[in-house]
């Protein structure tokens, strides 16, 4: 009998959450360590997935398929490919680190806190493993509720406003997605994500309907990403959320939106995506440039990082939009110039998508780390106002070093992870949407400006603000939390092959399995 790895990864945290409810409230230590142990199960298994996923074969692997609600043709179908495996690993890693970090910092209502994080993990991983819309939608919504409580209960002073804004905004998107899912079901009688893409192909003959479904999905995902102009819930949610909540929010929840673009939007509605690629690329451009500029205007460290997420996720969508564009290659498909040019364009498209997926992973690592660092300094100083810091470089050198490394990774310094993904995105999109990509590259410059000026210089350089003499440097548990993230930034900066091989296969297959996605006319 084969072991249902994916179900184990997805549901182990849920089981852990339920079990943890039976531990008496007073035994806080037991609750903390129990939930950390539980979160190690998906972490270990997803590392196993990564190692044993056969990248040369591609396609969904570790598949599980059972009839579930035959009356309406709902299957319990799970499977992973090069797109989902890294994201599952990222989710498991960040959840474990969040729980570990929180074990030292959260003081109140520990039982609920840990259970909610585990429930959240099930929701997030479930989205990445599901290959059936019914299942997908359930997990999508399951991820929403715990985050609402995490912000609303453990958050800052304006937590209720932020939590409700987050919840309602995202819910509005998901309702539209539900409608689109139902519409596809009524048209084709299936909830199967892959079959709908590859065989059934809803609304191919009715462009209006396809556009409607496309925009419904688009809104759900764009809000989650968040793409400009649907981004304003993000800074509020981040500023109010507790540290670990911010980490998972930026690290994973935003990726659910990006994942939706890759897994659903592009392969299911290629014609609509071809048509609307330019407007979407423009939105991505706004996310990049506008997000970076607004980030530069912030004086609250956490808000600044939040806006920088808008900027970074903009790169992901830029790559996607470039890859989705309909690209004419000569007039006759059989002309002699066409094949070489077509290969070249296909190569660019694959690279843009590779970069996008890699950027999601890297952003999770880098910005996740960033939010940990914000929490670490806030625990000590109880302020996030950049103007109140100054000269901390000599006072807390270790923290300075870790923060600088993370910031450099974030601004895309070669040798650290962020660069590889940005390079691939621009390499892919520049030949396809030249003017937009060229303007977008200026985002790199602005990002460097605000990270070096607002974060590094204002916090660490110059004379020490006398208020902070005696400020303690990073503790051991904080260092342990950051160490795996720094390691990944350096590893994938210098040697991205372990992740790229897998992603590259999945993205190339996208074009060969669903030929119309390639959009080469």
């Amino acid at each position, binding site marked *: 009998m084969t072991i249902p790895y994916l179900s184990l990864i997805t549901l182990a945290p849920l089981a852990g959450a339920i079990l943890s409810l039976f531990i008496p409230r007073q035994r806080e230590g037991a609750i903390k360590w129990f939930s950390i142990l539980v979160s190690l199960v998906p972490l270990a298994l997803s590392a196993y997935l990564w190692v044993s996923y056969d990248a040369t074969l591609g396609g969904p692997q570790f598949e599980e398929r059972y009839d579930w609600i035959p009356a309406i043709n709902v299957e319990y179908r799970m499977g992973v490919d090069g797109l989902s495996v890294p994201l599952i690993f990222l989710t498991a890693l960040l959840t474990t680190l969040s729980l570990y970090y929180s074990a030292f910092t959260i003081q109140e*209502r520990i039982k609920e806190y840990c259970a909610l994080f585990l429930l959240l993990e099930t929701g997030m991983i479930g989205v990445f493993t599901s290959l059936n819309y019914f299942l997908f939608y359930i997990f999508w919504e399951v991820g929403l509720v715990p985050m609402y409580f995490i912000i609303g209960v453990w958050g800052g002073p304006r937590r209720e406003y932020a939590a409700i804004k987050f919840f309602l905004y995202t819910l509005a998107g998901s309702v539209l997605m539900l409608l689109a899912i139902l519409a596809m079901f009524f048209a084709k009688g299936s909830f199967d994500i892959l079959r709908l893409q590859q065989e059934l192909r809803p609304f191919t003959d009715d462009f209006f309907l396809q556009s409607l479904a496309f925009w419904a999905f688009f809104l759900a995902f764009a809000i989650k990403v968040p793409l400009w102009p649907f981004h304003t819930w993000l800074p509020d949610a981040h500023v109010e959320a507790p540290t670990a909540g911010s980490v998972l929010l930026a690290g994973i929840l935003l990726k659910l939106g990006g994942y939706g673009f890759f897994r659903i939007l592009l392969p299911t509605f290629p014609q609509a995506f071809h048509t609307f690629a330019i407007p979407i690329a423009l939105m991505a451009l706004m996310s990049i440039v506008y997000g970076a500029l607004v980030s530069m*205007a912030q004086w609250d460290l956490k808000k600044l990082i939040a806006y920088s997420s808008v900027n970074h996720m903009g790169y992901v969508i830029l790559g996607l939009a470039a890859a989705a564009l309909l690209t004419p290659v000569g007039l006759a498909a059989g002309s002699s110039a066409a094949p070489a040019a077509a290969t070249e364009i296909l190569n660019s498209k694959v690279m843009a998508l590779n970069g996008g997926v890699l950027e999601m992973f890297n952003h999770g690592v880098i910005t996740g780390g960033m939010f940990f660092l914000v929490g670490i300094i806030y625990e000590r100083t109880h302020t996030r106002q950049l103007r109140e810091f100054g000269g901390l*470089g000599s006072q807390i050198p270790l923290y300075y070093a870790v923060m600088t490394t993370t910031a450099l990774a974030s601004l895309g310094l070669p040798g650290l992870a962020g660069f590889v993904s940005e390079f691939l995105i621009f390499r892919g999109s520049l030949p396809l949407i030249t003017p937009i990509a060229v303007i977008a590259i200026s985002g790199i410059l602005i990002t*460097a400006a605000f990270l070096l000026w607002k974060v590094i210089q204002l916090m660490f350089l110059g004379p020490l603000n006398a208020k902070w003499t005696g400020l303690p440097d990073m503790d051991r548990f904080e260092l342990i939390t950051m160490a795996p993230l720094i390691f990944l930034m350096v590893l994938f900066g210098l040697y991205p092959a372990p992740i790229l091989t897998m992603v*590259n296969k999945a993205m190339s297959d996208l074009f060969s399995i669903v030929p119309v996605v390639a959009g080469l006319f």
Partner: protein
Amino acid sequence: MPEILSLVWLVPVFPLLAFAAIVFLTHPDNQLSAWTAIAGIGLSTLVGLAIFATALGMPTLAEKPFHVTFPWIPTGTTQLTLGFMVDPLTAVMLAMVTVVCTAIFVYSQGYMDKDPRYARFFAYISLFASGMLGLVTADNLLILYLSWEIMGLCSYLLIGFWFERPAAANAAKKAFLTTRVGDVLLFIGLIILYFQTGSLSFEDIFSQLAFISAPLLVIVGLLIFAGAVGKSAQFPLHVWLPDAMEGPTPVSALIHAATMVAAGVYLVARTYPLFAAVQEGPALLWVGGIGAFTALFAASIAVAQNDIKRVLAYSTISQLGYMMAALGVGGFVASIFHLITHAFFKALLFLGAGSVIHAMHTNDMFEMGGLRRRMPITFWTLTAGALALAGIPPFAGFWSKDEILAEAFLHNPLIWLVLTLTGLVTAFYIARLIFLTFFGPERRREVREVEGTRFTLIPHESPRVMTAPLAFLASMVLLVGLAGVPADFPVLGPLLGSNPFHHFLGQNFARFGIEFEAIPFDASVSVLNTSLAAALLGLFIGWWLYGRQPLRQAQPDPLERLGPIHKLLKNKYYVDELYNATLVRGLVRLSEGLGSFDLRVIDGLVNLAGRGTAAFSELNRLFDVYVVDGAVNGVGSLTRWLGRGLREIQTGQVQNYLLVLALSTLLLAAVLINVLFTLIAILVIAGVTTLVWVLQPSVEDRPEERA
């Protein structure tokens, strides 16, 4: 023994390992860290010089450069490789970089003594050396770019090394961001080349140049040159380099004079076939024009600076301008020759200046004077560097500068004129530096108070660990130039092997059809005489103003008599002020404007939508309370009334109940199929509600409920 070439990839790796070792292991121990760093660069030097020596004996190296590659990043259907190469250009650069680096590492041991961040300094310069060596050995643009940016990072960290000083912090940020403007443009150029040729390796790119359209090639050339302009501090991106002098002096010598800033020149030289592919194209004209303009522009600023390191910084910008101009007029070999000689004499000048600063605790030349007797070794070595810079034979700068001038005279007389004029200005400002620092009276004595007693600090010669590198570099400044003495120069030419430098480098790109012929000596004699005259004139004016009658304490600079011109030069043509008023302020204003737009307009719309919905729901609530709930309450009353009536049926007898049960079961059975679904629905809803309720944080500790 060509096998040694296959070790080329180790050259950048040694200092990288030293960096890692210092960061993770040895940093608590200062001396151990310094020796780790020196061991790293020492090994690189050993291998580097061995490669250089081997390359000298390989006449076919230019034809068939040596490559070693490793697979790296899979992308699409292609694979990017991690590759290193050796050709004559790389070999020459390797020799220079490793030797200069080693000298400066040794010197730093003395200069950085007692600095609390001693170990960190050696970690940074090791990482830097790794970047620079990676740059010169890279066989593709991606590795080159990676090394390029690592050097940029080290430059940032080292300029801001004493980051408690706001000036250092600002300078570091300025350097990083200014060069990044160029980097981004270079990045675009690199991407264009990548998708045009499907490769980033130099060999592949150069062999496919014919397939790229001429206008695009010009654009790519200009983009690459933009990167070089940033790194080599050419106008208009030169503003960061003078400020970079906030870093420790060995850094100024190593990074901001000898090696990193030359990387821009190296980049253009390395991609020279790309520039040369479009005959008479505007790309090379831009390189030459910007280079020549920068040379004169920066030299004129150097004239009016009082900070000894700033004079040298502007001098560096100006000399880099010479190298760019040389590339622009097709003097590839001359440019690299000057790059090499400049590295030695400018490192010497900076280290000499550092020795002076170390003794005087000030950078201001008007507070120095009379150091000739107090610091003889520093004086003599610094003078050797100064003469090399001014272009006085037989010092290295003379040979390389004259080769550039000869090339310019032949190909672009206007550039020649500008560069010759620059030569005069150069000789003047360096004479000014020497006379102000070493001659005349000691204009200021530093007085310190220790425990109530006042000490007058008397400047003294620096320790051996600092003067030894000075002496070494001074001897190099005498010798290096001899490698490039024109072949038909009277007596010296044949004696020195008929210009071996040109011989070695001239064929570097012959495999792409580009050869560089040495200019016959006869053709350049007049050029040589003119430039020598200009240099001597400059030195003379310097002596006339500053040496003939040395300035006394607090006596104003005689140049102040120039009035507004002096003010303009002293304020560096107000370029910084211009950038701050326009670009920097503009960007900050824009970002602040967008910030409040985001808060007020975009988020305002979201909140408006929220409030609209809330208002609508309030309407619903009113409707609910008065209409719907009214109805419900009505139903409630009705039920209560009915219940009162039904109570009459409650007989308390089991039989009656059983009867009712049976009847209802039958009724249920009739509608079962539909009801079952409803039941399941109710169960699921109840289950979910319970879970949410259980997970919802308890309310037990709310004060009002406890009361």
